[in-house]
């Protein structure tokens, strides 16, 4: 229940901040979010702050700086858009750290299982992809030729495709044996 309530609160704050265009409101929201972050039991606060900053800064700074170059008097726009973007990013990162997303979505058994499985598979596949990349790097002294890279991409897609089919079969049998389908 706690996760669902926090999700509702998050959605309310998200909407409020998205509609807000006043610099002072957005600045107060940022201060409140920072105070909340400091007082919260969240671990690795600085890392979270860094992630939230990096997730919005590239696009946001590029767009707002470009706009500032075209319109010299657009400093208030520059501040407003970056503040709003940072507020929303920070809010999302804090929410994702405080809430168990799988529990927040457990009003639907299908959605919850789908999320758990998709994330589990994505993390495993990502680790395997890293191993594959390390393998090709360790076996080629110079930058691999285009032909080698095409063959590598072909092998990768084949491997992950077959793994996906096999994994889905195995998981389906495991779910059936544990009574997920209630048959």
């Amino acid at each position, binding site marked *: 229940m706690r996760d669902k309530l926090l999700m509702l609160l998050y959605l309310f704050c*998200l*909407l409020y901040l*998205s*509609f807000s*265009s006043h610099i002072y409101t957005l600045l107060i929201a940022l201060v409140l979010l920072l105070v909340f972050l400091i007082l919260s039991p969240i671990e690795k606060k600085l890392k979270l702050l860094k*992630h939230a900053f990096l*997730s*919005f800064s590239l*696009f*946001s700074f590029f*767009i*707002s700086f*470009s*706009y500032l170059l075209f319109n010299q008097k*657009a400093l*208030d*726009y520059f501040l407003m*858009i970056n503040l*709003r*973007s*940072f507020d*929303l*990013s920070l809010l*999302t990162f804090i929410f*994702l750290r405080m809430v168990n*997303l799988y529990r927040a979505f457990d009003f639907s058994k*299908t959605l919850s*299982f*789908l*999320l758990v*499985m*998709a*994330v*589990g*598979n*994505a993390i*495993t*596949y*990502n680790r395997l*992809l890293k191993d594959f990349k390390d393998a090709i790097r360790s076996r080629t002294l110079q930058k691999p030729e*285009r032909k080698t890279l*095409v063959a590598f*991409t*072909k092998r*990768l*897609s*084949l491997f*992950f*495709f077959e*793994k*996906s*089919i096999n*994994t*889905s*079969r195995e*998981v*389906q049998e495991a*779910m*059936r044996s544990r009574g997920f*389908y209630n048959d």
Partner: protein
Amino acid sequence: MHIPDGFLAPQVYIPAYLVDIGLLFYAFKRFKKNLKEETIPYLASLSAFSFIIMSIAIPLPGGTSVHGLGVASLSLLFGPWTAFLSISLVLFLQATIFGEGGITSFPINSLSIAFLGSLCAYYTYLIAKRYLEDKASLFLSGFLSTLMSAFAVALVLGIHPYLFKDTFGKPLYFPFKLSLVLPAVLFPHILVGIGEGILTIIILRALRGRI
């Protein structure tokens, strides 16, 4: 393209969420009708597969490389509705679990990349293979689906300064008009489209006949 939160107006992303959820619900019903028990594990595995395709760098002539989307490959292998579902799931995971792309931009990405991209790839291939060789049709399918997605994203961004401005005429959300944002988004995506076209050829040639 990862649009962070704050650049899209709620008047745009809320209706987009409603449309996207409706389409996703319909796609899921279609998918479930054909697969029943296998639906959840198959969709989860397929989404992880598309997640990996998005992480693969495609070598381009001239020594450069770009990251593909895998939209055309998935659409041609599994059909546009299945591709739409699995790519949307990946985009959702990227926004929520992995912190890439905003929550408010998720429906725009899902509709433009997953929905329009998948449909465009599928029907481009169907039409193109009547007149062109298979390899050229695959390439065109990947290339055009990427440009179509980029065009849709640019269109959504570009309408913001016309619709949402304060009393002094200053923008409240994304600031650049269509005349600027269309070429700025479309031209770099030509390179991504070429990469996507090559990726579609590689994947389809390797995996066709294994389904």
